[in-house]
Structures are given as structure tokens and as C-alpha cells.
């Protein structure tokens, strides 16, 4: 069977995971891969847990990434990183935004937000990169660009041509926001 790269993007509805996955998919397509992507829209704006699944290779059948098979997890929030950890390969890479968004059960006191998540992740996987994407995005000019900061970190890790990432950014990001996003991407790339 042909080699397929599996990538999960996980976060909270409203964080821009879907835009990030579109940039990633564009780069994969431009690199000549067959790409299949799966998303669940229902929670896109209602603050629920969202995950986009990307598979790229010579030939891809199922659009779903299975447990223990993700090569890379891009996590936009700490709790979601912990939730989806079982999907990461033993030698997989996790890039995790250190942002914390408390779910409603935690806010009302019915559940506790786990402590020391980054340490827990690093204890279970060798390649965990923690990034304060929110601060980097604010420095670049807009807190909402933290998704693109994370894409920048991922871009460096994959080694795919910088040019292709720029091209995908131009194609997928609204024109008036392109400068902020270029800077956010650069900030992430520098950290990778």
C-alpha cells in the first residue's frame, strides 16, 4: 500500500482550524499528492471540539485518520491536544498552542481542567513542540491569526518549499488580511 501521511488539526470551534486545514490541503495538492480531507461542521461556531483530518499520498482511499496513525497533530488548544493524543503515532510530531479555552463543564465547576498538560504530552511522546501562538499572533497584529502561526511552525517541520506555503496563504486568506497573516506565518516558521 502506498505511503500516506496523516495529519490532524484539532481545536475549539471558532479558532480557525478549517482555514488552516485549507491552506495545508492546498500545499499538499500543489506538491502533487492526492489529498482527502474530512471535517465535521456542526460545531464550527458553537465552541465545541472540532477536528479536521487530512490524508496525503500517492493514493488515498479512506478520508479518516485512525487511532495511533497520525504522523502530525496540530493542536490549537491544550485540552484538545490531550483529548486527541491517542491518535498520534509513537514517533509522531505534536505542535500544540499553549492557549487554554475552558469548556462549559469546567466553567460551571462540574469538571476540572487537567493541570500540566504540556508536561503530560511530553511524557508520552518524544516530539512535542509547545508554541504560544496567541502571543505571536498578537505581535504580528491580530490575535485571530494564531492558526496561521501554527501553520508556520508546521511548514518548517515538513520541509515543503516555503514558496508553496506563501502561494497557498495568498489563495486562501482574504486580501485585506494578507499582511498580518504573512507576518504570523513568518513568526511561526522562525519557531519551527
Amino acid at each position, binding site marked *: *500500500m502506498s505511503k500516506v501521511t496523516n495529519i490532524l488539526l484539532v481545536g*475549539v*470551534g471558532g479558532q480557525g482550524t478549517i482555514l488552516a486545514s485549507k491552506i495545508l*490541503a492546498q500545499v499538499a*495538492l500543489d506538491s502533487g499528492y*492526492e*489529498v*482527502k*480531507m*474530512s*471535517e*465535521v*461542521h*456542526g*460545531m*464550527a*461556531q*458553537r*465552541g*465545541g*471540539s472540532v477536528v479536521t483530518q487530512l490524508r496525503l499520498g500517492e493514493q*488515498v*482511499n*479512506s*478520508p*479518516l485518520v*485512525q*487511532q*495511533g496513525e497520525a504522523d502530525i497533530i496540530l493542536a490549537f488548544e491544550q*485540552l*484538545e491536544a*490531550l*483529548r486527541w*493524543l*491517542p491518535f498520534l503515532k509513537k514517533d509522531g510530531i505534536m505542535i500544540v498552542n499553549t492557549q487554554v479555552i*475552558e*469548556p*462549559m*463543564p*469546567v*466553567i*460551571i*465547576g*462540574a*469538571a*476540572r*481542567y*487537567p493541570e500540566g498538560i504540556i508536561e*503530560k504530552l511530553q511524557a*508520552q511522546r518524544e516530539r512535542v513542540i509547545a508554541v504560544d501562538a496567541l502571543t505571536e499572533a498578537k505581535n504580528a497584529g491580530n*490575535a485571530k491569526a494564531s492558526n496561521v502561526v501554527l501553520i508556520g511552525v508546521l511548514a518548517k517541520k515538513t520541509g515543503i518549499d516555503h514558496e508553496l506555503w506563501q502561494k497557498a496563504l495568498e489563495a486562501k486568506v482574504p486580501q485585506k488580511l494578507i499582511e498580518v497573516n504573512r507576518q504570523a506565518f513568518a513568526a511561526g516558521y522562525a519557531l519551527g
Partner: protein
Amino acid sequence: MSGNEAIARGAYEAGVTVAAGYPGTPSTEILENIVQYTSIKAQWSPNEKVALEVGAGASIGGARALVTMKHVGVNVAADPLFTVAYTGVNGGLLLISADDPGMHSSQNEQDNRYYGKFAKVPVVEPSDSQEAKDFVGIALQISEDFDTPVIFRTTTRVNHSQSLVGLKEPQTPVLKPYVKNPQKYVMVPAYARLRHVVVEDRLVKLARYAETSPLNRIEWGGKKIGVITGGICYQYVKEALPEASVLKLGMSFPLPEGLIREFARGVDNLFVVEELEPFLEEQVRALGLKVHGKDIFTRIGEYTPNLIAQKILLTIGAQEKAEYLASPANSGEPVPVRPPVMCPGCPHRGVFYTLKQLKAVVAGDIGCYTLGSLAPLEAMDTTICMGASIGTALGMEKANPEFKGRTVSVIGDSTFMHSGITGLVDLVYNQGQGTVLILDNSITAMTGHQHNPATGKTLSEQPSYQVDLVKLVQACGISRVQVVDPFELKQVKAVLQEEMAAPEPSVVILRRPCALIVKATGESVETNQENCTGCFQCIKLGCPAISKGEKTVMINSALCTGCGLCLQVCKFSALVKVGGKGE
């Protein structure tokens, strides 16, 4: 392209000129994408029954038509479906049923392939975006060649997964001539009896067609394992067992008996892999063939390639291979769930906060406001289906007089237009006493902000006649109707108490636009740390912008829209608008 984008493109390429539907995940984006093709007249209908009737009319009028809905929507459209199955079509007619195994956004996971068998119409199932596009044209041709509506059945993973699609030049739409033919289109019993004979005959012809249709094919691989499958499960099977032989069914009903027998003869172990019900399996079994299906696979939820491989390999005795595929154990630590919530600034929030205070019995309905059932608001007793709230409340009142004066039904503007009006008429006509709350946020929100007859705009954002909800409920016989701002908690409480106590039916319209479609003009709120006693009453609003600090409350200004609900709830003036005094 996503499956939905591909279906829209397929409609364009196949010369469809009329499309109607009602929003419902995972089908919604089909019509939203059809709008870009100006050769297609696309519309949101108030509900799926009307949408199918519009589609049927377009078909009878000579055009190719497409109707879209989620799986439960077909329940609403079932009445016209069963009779259009008898009348047949003129221009091709497709009914898209977007099913939801795993219930990602639905109240059940019913398997709508059965509608094909029940209504005696063919069912076509694509397995990826390319097929989602190509099969539209093929299905429309089947519709015209065999004089039948066709059910085009997808599941969430096909609608919302993206894969590569090759495009074709669109064909010029053809308008078939209309010939008056009451024996075909007027289903009085005398004519319907004639049509039933045609329907049975048609099924035989369709089964014969299935044997050589491009929708179905055998992919010969190894002899040991043979899998009959279709839809997204085809992709999972190819992933899980690349060496197995596969009978791929792009048409799930009627089935090609000859092809199935030929396939069964060529393999040692025969399996059917299908999510939800043994729809294919039962028909294979009825041919007298030995086959595995629901004896090893569950009827509940979605499958994964590993699950499929594991079950099949275990069954044929490949023990070690099967064990290798067993799911790795979880990290062990329980991770808090993250349920969806009402957005900061949602106009529904204060209503449910108040209903809980009043200890009301709440018959709920389907929309963003269904989230009023979750913690901490927990102010809903029932939610069954679209429009059910009003009838349910009436029924409770009739069953037990103790429910009078305590029971309200809660329904949104779009849901009310969909199927709430008839419930309201029942309430008045059969002399109930209940109070109906119409939550009018000027949009169909949960499905991603679509227009409806109460918003004043169409699918293509054209201004149109806007239904006057006040006049409408008055015309139904309601004399007590009030319009209230759901951000004014005192007024909301007073009006609800007044109307619930009134010995006649009443309607309260709570009107304010959805927080996501208006620019937040209110200033953000912040905590006055000196005044905050840590009573955390405001937390009971369940607003994602409000959280518990160590001893006092913290407001996330990035999320806060300044709706002012928490100010009204705080007894200690501890919440204030930034830069100003509390109100």
C-alpha cells in the same frame, strides 16, 4: 471539493434548472453552492415536504429538478415521495437524502436506504466527491429512462469530506414538453391502481438494469475474502483490505441478483460491510446466500477501516493479524468533554435563564436554542422533531391538568415556519392554554445562517416578502401576543409570568438578531473586583466569556459582546461596562 460542492456542480453539469430544499446538516451546502450556477433556480422552501412538491412540479413541468434535505427531512417529505413514486416524472427528479451515521448533528441515525425499498424507487450512493458529481447525471438519466424519482443517498463522510474532482463541460438544460395526463399525475384510486402495476413492472426493469449499470462493478482480488459494499464503506474496505475482492454497489436498490451470485461464487467468505442497518445484507440473504454482516458488525454509529479489518480477519481465523489492529489503549486520564454552547451575546440565553427561574416545564424544538437543555441552563424537558414543541406542550396539558399554567413551548422563527404553525392552530382550535415562545433571531442559525420566510430575504440574498409573525399568530386565533426584547430580563420574566398565568393560549415573540450576524456594538464587560463577592450567580448564565477566577469572576473581553445580561443578574454591581458605570 467536498461531496456537497461536487453534487452542486453535478447538478449544473447535468442541466438541472430547479433546486429546492430545507437546511439540514450534512446537506445544507448543496443548495448554498448551487446558488453560484445562475442557470439553476434555487430556493429554500419552508420545509422539506414543500421542497419536494416544488421539485415534483418542476419535473412534471419538464425540467430536471433536485431536492435536498437531511435524513429526518425525508420523514417530512415522505408524503409526496410515496405518491410521486406512483406518478413518475417528466424531467428527471432527484431527492438527496444526506444521512448522518454517528449522529454528528442529528436526533437519530435512521437508515434512509429503506425509503427506496418502501416507496419503490431506486437508491443511488456515491462513495467520494468525484462520484457525488458524476452520479447526479447518471441518476437523472435513470430517473427519466425508468420514469421514477431517484433517491440520491449520501452520508456525512461523503458530504463533508473533500477529495479531487475532475470537471466536465455543462450540458445545455433541456425542457421536456408537458402533456396533460391525469391518469399519470392525478392519483385518484382508479388511476393509482393502474400506476401501481407500472411501478412493479418498473422495479423489474431496474433490477435488470442494475446488472450492467456503470454504478455497480466487481473488483476481483484474492479469493479468500469477498466484500459487498457501497458508499463511504467502499473507501474504508479498500483501505482496510486492499487484497480482498469487492462488489461495489453504486445503486443500493434494487440489487443486481446475477452480479451478486457471480461474486458469491468467486469468493470463499462473503461479507457485507454497511453502516447502520443490514439493508444490503437482508437482500443478499434472501437470495439464499451465506453471508456475514450484522452477526459481526454493529448497527450503531460509524465504522473505521481498522474495525472492518479486525472483524473480518477474526471471522476467517486470521487471529494475529486481527489483534494487531485492535485499538491502542487510551492515555487513561479522563478528559473533560467540550459540548457546544450558545455564543456570547446569544439572545436565547436570558430566555432559558428565566424559564429555569420560573421552574417552567419546557417543550423544546430544534435549533440553536436546543442548547438551552445543557448545563448550566438545563431548562428544557423535551425535544422530539421539527415543530414538535407546540403539539407536545398541548398534549402534556391534556394529559395532566397540573401542567396548565406551568408549561411553555419554545420554537425558533425558522422552525415555526417549517412546522410550528399547524401546532399553534391545534393549540387554539382544541382550546389549550399554553404559552408559545417564538425565539425570533431573524435567521436559520444552527445550520449556518440561512434565510427563511420570516427574515425577508431569499437564498440568493434577494429581498422578498417577510412574514409578519404577529399578524400570522393573530390570524390563527391568538389574541394575546407580545413582542419582547430578550435582553431585558426583568421584562422577559414579567411577561412570561403574566402569559403563563393567563387562562387562554398566548404567544410571546422574543425578537433580537443572532449574535453572529450583527456587529457587537456594546462595550465589553469587566469585573469590579471590590464588589464581587464570588457568589457566581452570573456563571449560571452559561456564557463562555464568563469564568470563575480564584475568588471572583473573570470576563474574557475578546469573547464578550456587551449584551449586558450578566449585569442584570449580578446583585452586587460587580459587573460593569468597560469605561463606565454598571447599568
